[in-house]
């Protein structure tokens, strides 16, 4: 119950305040080249574990934890993103994170790992479209060339002063995870920066 309340209060506040869809484009462009929507109620778990326990955790969550930082792995709709040498972020289907948390906390390695549910602390935004790399490059110092930032790579960086985790799903499809408190700001920036390519903001799924 408490979970539902907190999600209603903070989860997608940045999107619910606005009247969606938002379309911003110059007159000479017919169709918006960038599409943006929130991924609603995506479960997020922060796991800290030593490399010794990595394989055991991978088995428990049924998704391999990536070996190197700045990479992610995905299996059956679940993502495991490496945030550092001993820190991982797991993205799970709505409600799936509670199940995973229970599994990990009741396992025999529970003493050696830390599991924190950060579903409400972060907000996931799905970005897609032909010009999405060009659009993100406007505020992000990372090299987003398709040859250097490829599928299954992730990066923690700043987009226009907001700290984000950027995941590359396909060539022109990204998930951007930012702090809920920064979602408003990031959405403003996206609407502004995406105007030249044409941007369509829709309600999440």
């Amino acid at each position: 119950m408490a979970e539902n309340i907190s999600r209603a209060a903070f989860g997608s506040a940045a999107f619910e305040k606005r009247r969606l869809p938002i379309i911003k484009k110059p007159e000479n462009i017919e169709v918006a080249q960038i599409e943006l929507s929130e991924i609603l109620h995506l479960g997020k778990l922060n796991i800290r574990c030593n490399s010794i326990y990595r394989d055991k955790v991978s088995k428990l969550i049924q998704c391999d934890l990536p070996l190197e930082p700045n990479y992610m792995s995905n299996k059956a709709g679940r993502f495991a993103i490496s945030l550092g040498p001993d820190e991982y972020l797991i993205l799970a289907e709505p409600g799936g994170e509670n199940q995973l948390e229970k599994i990990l906390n009741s396992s025999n390695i529970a003493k050696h790992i830390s599991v924190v549910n950060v579903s409400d602390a972060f907000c996931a935004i799905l970005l897609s479209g032909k010009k999405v790399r060009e659009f993100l490059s406007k505020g992000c110092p990372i090299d987003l060339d398709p040859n250097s930032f490829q599928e299954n790579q992730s990066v923690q960086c700043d987009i226009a002063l907001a700290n984000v985790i950027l995941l590359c799903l396909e060539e022109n499809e990204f998930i951007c995870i930012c702090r809920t408190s920064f979602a408003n700001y990031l959405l403003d920036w996206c609407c502004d920066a995406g105007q030249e390519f044409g941007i369509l903001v829709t309600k999440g799924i």
Partner: protein
Amino acid sequence: MLKIKCPYCGYRNESEFSCGGEAHIARPAVSNKITDSAFCEYLFMRENPKGVFLERWCHTSGCRRWFNIARDTVSHEIYEIYLMGNTPKTVKGKKAYQANWRRTSKAEAASKTPKRTKK
């Protein structure tokens, strides 16, 4: 802008990092009693060299991990990047480490807990 190679994330812009000042400052252990002036020296005195300086840096916008850098304060050249808990390995880094007045200070000597003797 400096391009700093984070040991975990690779080359990133300086704007993603924050500097934590001088590295290798050991806190005196509670069990070792030292004078107030020696503690003051540990707490407030910092090296300000013209040349190689050993600093702590944090990749704030990335992996949020701390590491050490041996940087030249005049040319900004980075000689070495090494992990926390290690000492520099390059010649210039080693020299800067040894030349620091802190190596002979009372506070640093007091930071090492006395070895337990077998009963």
